[in-house]
């Protein structure tokens, strides 16, 4: 075995390419982010004006739209956590019962997750279209013509319409995660419970849920992180509109940077948002450590 003598530089040569990139594109930007957040800077000028923590103060106190965007991403997240993950779990349980055609179902459910957010957004943009969309055409044909509307352009429905696209794209991912978790539960446990007279409901709450809890925690946390940082779908469908009705934190950070050229402010927004998400990441690591 190639034992490295103490002080040998061989192992460092092996990790060097990876860590050069890591230093330039992960570590240094992290420093740039915190550093720039203390300045007022338009991204072009040679000089930056030091403003201390005032960018942070403005994010926290004087930026209601940013917090609106926060709650709107939160709304989509709550829908994803409940409806999307519940659907994913039920479907996983169905396929786990050796349902005929289970393999086909798995193939189809996981189709939306492998598509890009742009493609998914653009397909649904046309499905939801007010004049020519297939969704309105279906409603009209079902005699619900009164309900038709430009779903993504109507302030009352835009956010929920985006949330539905997001859940459509995401449930298949939760499904494969739950299915992987379910397949680790030994069938004998259910047999034994059946012999002891436990009904389906009891078996679900006493066996499936407790043993699936670690997977549930991972899926929930990743759903929160993924949904709060939703961006591509918004860009491809509403671009934050109508008004600010589908703005989310990342679109706000984006327009602070490229829209109003306030780079320092964009960095502060990113850090405030990042710290909030970090809280959930730490929660995930804690739970995972406990479960393994």
């Amino acid at each position, binding site marked *: 075995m190639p034992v490295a003598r103490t002080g040998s530089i061989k192992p460092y040569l*092996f990790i060097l390419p990876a860590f050069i990139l890591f230093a330039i594109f992960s570590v240094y930007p992290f420093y740039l982010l915190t550093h720039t957040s203390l300045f007022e800077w338009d991204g072009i000028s040679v000089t930056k004006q030091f403003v201390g923590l005032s960018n942070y103060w403005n994010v926290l106190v004087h930026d209601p739209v940013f917090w609106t965007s926060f709650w709107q991403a939160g709304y989509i997240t709550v829908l994803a956590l409940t409806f999307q993950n519940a659907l994913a779990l039920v479907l996983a349980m169905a396929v786990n019962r050796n349902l005929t055609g289970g393999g086909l179902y798995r193939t189809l459910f996981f189709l939306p997750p492998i598509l890009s957010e742009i493609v998914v957004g653009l397909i649904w943009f046309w499905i939801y279209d007010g004049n020519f969309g297939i969704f309105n055409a279906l409603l009209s044909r079902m005699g619900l013509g009164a309900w038709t509307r430009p779903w993504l352009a109507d302030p009352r429905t835009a956010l929920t319409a985006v949330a539905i696209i997001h859940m459509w794209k995401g449930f298949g991912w939760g499904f494969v995660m739950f299915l*992987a978790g379910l397949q680790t539960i030994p069938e004998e446990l259910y047999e034994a419970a059946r012999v002891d007279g436990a009904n389906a409901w009891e078996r679900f709450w006493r066996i499936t849920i407790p043993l699936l809890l670690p997977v549930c925690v991972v899926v929930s946390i990743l759903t929160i992180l993924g949904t709060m940082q939703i961006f591509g779908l918004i860009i491809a469908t509403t671009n934050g509109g109508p008004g600010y009705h589908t703005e989310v934190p990342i679109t706000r950070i984006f327009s602070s940077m490229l829209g109003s050229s306030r780079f320092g402010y964009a960095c502060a927004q990113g850090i405030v948002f990042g710290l909030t998400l970090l809280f959930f990441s730490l929660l995930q*690591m804690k739970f995972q450590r406990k479960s393994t």
Partner: protein
Amino acid sequence: MTKAAVSVTLFTQRARQWVGELGWHLFCLPIALTCVFPLVWMLSSSLKTQQTVFTDYRIIPVTPHFENYLRAWVQGRFGTYFLNSLLYTLIVVVGVVGMAALAAYAFSRFKFKGSGVLYKILLSTMLIPIPGSFVALYILLNQMGLIDQGSGQWMARMGYILPQINGGLPFGVFILKPFFDGIPKELEESAEVDGCGVLGVFWHIMLPLARPALGVVALLTSLSAWNEFLLAYLVFSRHELMPLQRGLLAFHGAHLTEYPLLMAGMVISIVPIVVIYLVMQRNIIKGITAGALKG
């Protein structure tokens, strides 16, 4: 129990199972259909004309206009976007697999000063979200001249490729290191005796043995590289450098009314990943669940 009674209970049991199965299908089937319907609709619309697409709701158009694909490929520039995506994906995959394999091998086989800490720092980037990092990345790429602003085309291409390789490394190391750990060390020892150097052992023994894990890393990296768009949004302004996802947005913004061509462009953009998915779905799903559940 009489023979008749037994067969009756067996029958009711079968019937109950059958009804249960039917119930599950009634629940699963509509959902499965909603997963494919938008894609079928996209394919169908891509074969219609600007006039019929809004009036003809038939799935199979009366006269399919296959020439839409030629027009999307040439006039819609989707040919350029497609080849760009192919190029970027290829380089990113080779970069991630190569660098991650080297690093994972070092972490697996050598004990060196700081190895534990470096490994943890690298993997922590998979768990710590830095949602504003694209702002800093933009500033950095700008400083390095890697943003597409009329400079040489390879500068901008590198500005798109390098951060993606970096982004894929933690996952690659995370998958490959445990795999190297599981390969018995005796193989390398005998190769050493035969006069192989460290690099020789790595190249001739370890890489071929790690092929399944390398394949999973390559698969998942290519999926995410093909679907990447945020960085493309930041970096590119010239059409001839854009990958598909960025090109789709550009086309959508410029030709809001060229519906069938947009749909044809989207079909072009998803064909490679759908084909790869259908062939390799087991490995893709295994990689994704392993990445999330073993963390």
